[in-house]
């Protein structure tokens, strides 16, 4: 494929925002006025281009924002879009603590400074064997961790999602069997890898709530459930931290959860994936080792038995 070498194009060059806003307002009419005004009010987020972006067309914004696994808002894929509007994301603060020299509480814009934002077009592979391509806006997690000055004993990074049952119906449910809040973790070297980011936006705008607003993790070579949403705490630890899915079903979800077509989920194959937005008759895509990021990350796991550390 020929690469575009001219001036940097944005989504606004494809469809100017004024045009789609106008179109939406025209179609929806007066009934949808609150929606139109909210979109118009959404600030745009500018991200510098990055060499880590892939050269594939992103999944449509409509699909990215309407097909989500965010069990705090319900089990159906449509539930997050339906119910996440209730979540208050302003003000928001993230505690960074544990084995760091400079623990503290930070605002979203302290962690992901507007001037440091990058656009990262990444593949996302869900453990349920479907995939998308998402144009994230965010900052390398490594920069955030470095500023907190990790101590020599720090070997892992633990993350925690907000616990707010009054705003998150899934956390009130007697079903599910999940021990809230949702927690995730990475090895420190995985967290420091340049591909790992904290995202605050997608498609050039702040993250919609259903996608993990206001700040979430994105680790593109791991199954989507590792990329924890709506983070309120980042803790550097000496020991491997507990992770939600691993606690719930340890045989099915490991700590590492690297995308790997050769290691099946006990209940289904991971060899291929359905491409979201490709239509009913689109062929399945062969899943790639480390979701196609093997060149960049395989070194992190050299000598490790990926069947044992799934």
């Amino acid at each position, binding site marked *: 494929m020929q690469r575009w070498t001219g001036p940097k194009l944005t989504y606004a060059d494809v469809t100017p925002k004024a045009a789609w806003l106008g179109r939406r307002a025209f179609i929806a009419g007066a009934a949808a006025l609150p929606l139109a005004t909210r979109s118009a009010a959404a600030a745009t987020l500018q991200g510098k281009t990055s060499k880590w972006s892939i050269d594939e067309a992103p999944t449509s914004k409509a699909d990215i924002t309407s097909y989500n696994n965010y*069990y705090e808002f319900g089990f159906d894929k449509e539930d997050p879009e339906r119910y996440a509007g209730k979540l208050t994301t302003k003000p928001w603060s993230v505690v960074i603590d544990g084995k760091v020299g400079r623990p503290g509480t930070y605002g979203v814009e302290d962690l992901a400074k507007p001037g440091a934002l990058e656009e990262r077009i990444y593949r996302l592979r869900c453990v349920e064997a479907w995939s998308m391509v998402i144009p994230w806006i965010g900052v390398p997690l490594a920069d955030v961790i470095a500023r907190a000055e990790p101590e020599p004993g720090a070997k892992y990074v633990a993350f925690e999602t907000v616990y707010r049952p009054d705003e998150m119906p899934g956390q009130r449910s007697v079903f599910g069997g999940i021990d809230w809040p949702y927690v995730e973790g990475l090895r420190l070297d995985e967290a420091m890898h340049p591909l790992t980011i904290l995202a605050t936006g997608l498609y050039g705008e702040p993250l919609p709530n259903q996608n993990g607003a206001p700040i979430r993790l994105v680790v593109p070579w791991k199954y989507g459930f590792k990329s924890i949403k709506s983070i309120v705490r980042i803790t550097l630890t000496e020991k491997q931290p507990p992770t939600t899915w691993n606690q*719930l079903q340890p045989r099915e979800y490991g700590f590492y959860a690297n995308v790997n077509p050769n290691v099946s989920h006990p209940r289904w*194959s991971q060899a291929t994936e359905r491409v979201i937005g490709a239509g009913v008759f689109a062929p399945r895509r062969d899943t790639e080792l480390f979701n196609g990021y093997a060149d960049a990350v395989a070194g992190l796991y050299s000598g490790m038995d990926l069947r044992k550390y799934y």
Partner: protein
Amino acid sequence: MIDRLNMALRRLPSWPLYILGAVPAIAWFRLALLNRLGADPVRALEHEYGLIALQLLIAALCITPLREIVGLNLLRFRRAIGQLAFVYALLHFIVWLWLDRQFDWPRIAEDLLKRPYIIVGFAALLLLLPLALTSTDSAIRRLGGARWRRLHRLAYPATLLAGLHFIWLVKAWPAEPLLYGAGIVLLLAWRAVRSRRKGARRAMPQKFRANEKKLS
């Protein structure tokens, strides 16, 4: 009131159920073709056909308790409900083979041999097959009422397996599949208790049975 309802129902033919039953299958397939089933239309279509099959299987299991507990007689609609359940289960299977697995036979074989929830779903479909083939008046005559009834008790394990298939394929423990599962267990438990009672009554000597009638 119930009697009058039963009288009215007796005048209704069952053939419109087949037409009514075909509507969702066609409507959902049309929406899938038009790409109007959201981000993952294959999953949506597959799930919907499977869910309708399960609901119809459960509906068929409700006919007898409705008659014995409430007195509502819907027996003459049960054949159509059962046949439609089989058709939806078959459509669910076809969508899986065609649109989901895309006739990738080695992987389909692997799924059918290795993935318990798929094995269980497929077993349910296989159990329904002889029932669909013998859902005719001539088959009842050929088999005789008693043998036919015994054969059609396969609907119980088939429905149980279909419910298990649903619970087994989801992540974590969401409410919906568990509630279907609970409903199926309840319907089958009611039958188990009832047949045990009947069996006990049959085993009782004649004079006690007469007493029992007086008491009740």
